């Protein structure tokens, strides 16, 4: 990589990091309607089962396999007072590290990052650890999310119970 290309790559990664930090802030402040605006209408949000991290939603059982419609419904659900597991809401802290960015054709980016999501509610502490896999699109208004997939490193969900929050 030439010095110029390397500098350009660092700049790109910084832009992506800014984007991921902004996304985390929307989740942590429960601004879910604004968070949903980051997604394109053909977007996917996936969380595979702990024992099948390469799970393909067409063949394998996932924990979450949201298209845009169900993602929007998930936001509506979490905004309501009837999502009992999340009413009142948990305090969360979405932390993103080890961000690696790769250019894809057609103005898309592949982004891999580590995450730690802390969740605190009614005296209980839960911690989700894993890898984010994003496919981002460049647009005039900034990045758009085409795919967000959160693969959990925990071998099971015994310590956290559920994934009612958005990772």
């Amino acid at each position, binding site marked *: 990589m030439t010095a110029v290309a390397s500098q350009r790559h660092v700049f790109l990664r910084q832009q992506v990091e800014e984007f991921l930090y902004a996304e985390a802030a929307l989740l942590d402040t429960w601004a879910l309607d604004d968070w949903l605006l980051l997604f394109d209408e053909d977007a996917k949000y996936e969380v595979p089962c702990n024992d099948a991290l390469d799970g393909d939603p067409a*063949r394998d059982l996932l*924990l979450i*396999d949201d298209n845009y419609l169900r993602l929007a*419904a998930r936001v509506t*659900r979490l905004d309501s007072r009837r999502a009992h597991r999340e009413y009142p809401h948990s305090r969360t802290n979405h932390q993103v590290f080890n961000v690696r960015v790769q250019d894809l054709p057609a103005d898309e980016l592949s982004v891999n990052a580590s995450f730690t999501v802390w969740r605190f509610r009614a005296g209980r502490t839960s911690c989700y650890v894993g890898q984010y896999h994003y496919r981002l699109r460049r647009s005039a208004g900034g990045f758009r999310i085409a795919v967000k997939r959160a693969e959990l490193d925990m071998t099971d969900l015994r310590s956290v*119970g559920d994934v009612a929050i958005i990772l």
Partner: protein
Amino acid sequence: MSTGVEPRVAPATEVAAQLPVVVDDPVAQRFRVHRSAMTSPEIHRAEVERIFAKSWLYVGHESEIPEPGDFVRRPVGGRPVFMVRGAKTGNINVFHNTCTHRGALVCRQDSGNSKVFQCFYHAWTFDSEGQLKGVPDRDAYAGGLNFDELGLKRVARVETYRGFVFACFDPDIEDLPTYLAGAKEYIDLVVDGCGGSVEMARGTNQYSFGANWKLLVENSFDGYHAESTHDTYFKYLVSIGTDLRGGVSGQAVDLGNGHAVIEYSSPWGRPVAKWEPLFGADAHTEIDRLRTDLVARHGEQRAHAMAEVNRNLLIYPNLIINDIMAVTVRTFYPPAPDTVDVTAWALAPRNEPASLRHRRLDSFLTFLGPGGFATPDDLEALESCQQGFASGGVEWNDISRGMGRVPVANDEEQMRVFWRHWQHQMSAAADRAGAR
């Protein structure tokens, strides 16, 4: 040696003798369960001895280990065991997961294929039929080693029904078909509705929460809670065009030996074979064809039971097969009175066409599992009950709903069936029978 000053912990048998904690009063039409059943460490200890050590418990499904040497390991009744298809016999073997030498686990992977299981501690080696095959430096045993006696220890009883593998730690238990009683024909409906041959989809839900396991038994076939607890799921169905007007209607059936089922019609769709908007317009023809197929093979009445009727089935004590918007197989175990470990799978027809499988899984995870629109709210409800028990002031749970009428699916008769059998197994009468 007792000093006479330690706090006295009553043995399990003594506490159980203080039961009944279940009061069944058909005259007053009241059914009550004392909340100590959910909170008492002594009752929990008695459950481990009397229920989990003496019932047929679900281990897994034959389809998980199709080839010789295929294995899965998991806890059953809180004990580490593994299930392996014998390379010589093709039989399903379920072994205590412990080396006969000094105790270490011999199967240390969750699943895989192996012809041998070697304990890494001293390298004793067993084959997939449990036979001891190798001991390093065996000349050191002057008296010789009896390889036949030192094979892996089988769980006392193992039997299968329609591919569902059960084990029991008590050698004297009745055979599995007798034990399953009326539950057999409901398992048949599920399996035959899936074309007669089923498998578990890849991907397991393994989660835990802070409530007594019997609250999960109740919740797994509780029609009464659906509308209030799962409001957000029903709103989602409405938003995609599902017609909720039919509601939920049906009945509860006592299947004997503590097993029970609720069977009912519902607004949601079923991959076999009731279309709904969630499945998409292009699925209509395919699902209609599945239904026509069922009628041709089983006649209209049985086809109706398979296609349109939902089943929430309890196989006593801790196996749930819910044939609802998808089929879930769920088993659980309490490591403590206020904790339950749940493991759940999606059951599906073997070799199901890809488009149907995708829709089935989609339907499953929308409602079910730790990321679904319903299961997390169930966990919240059950933990909330457990926390409420700690408040005291109220000693009894009321489970009387629907007594004195033909029990409908939204009543609590199916829970009473469970509790009556639980009481029977835990009671002093069961003690006396055991002493004979």
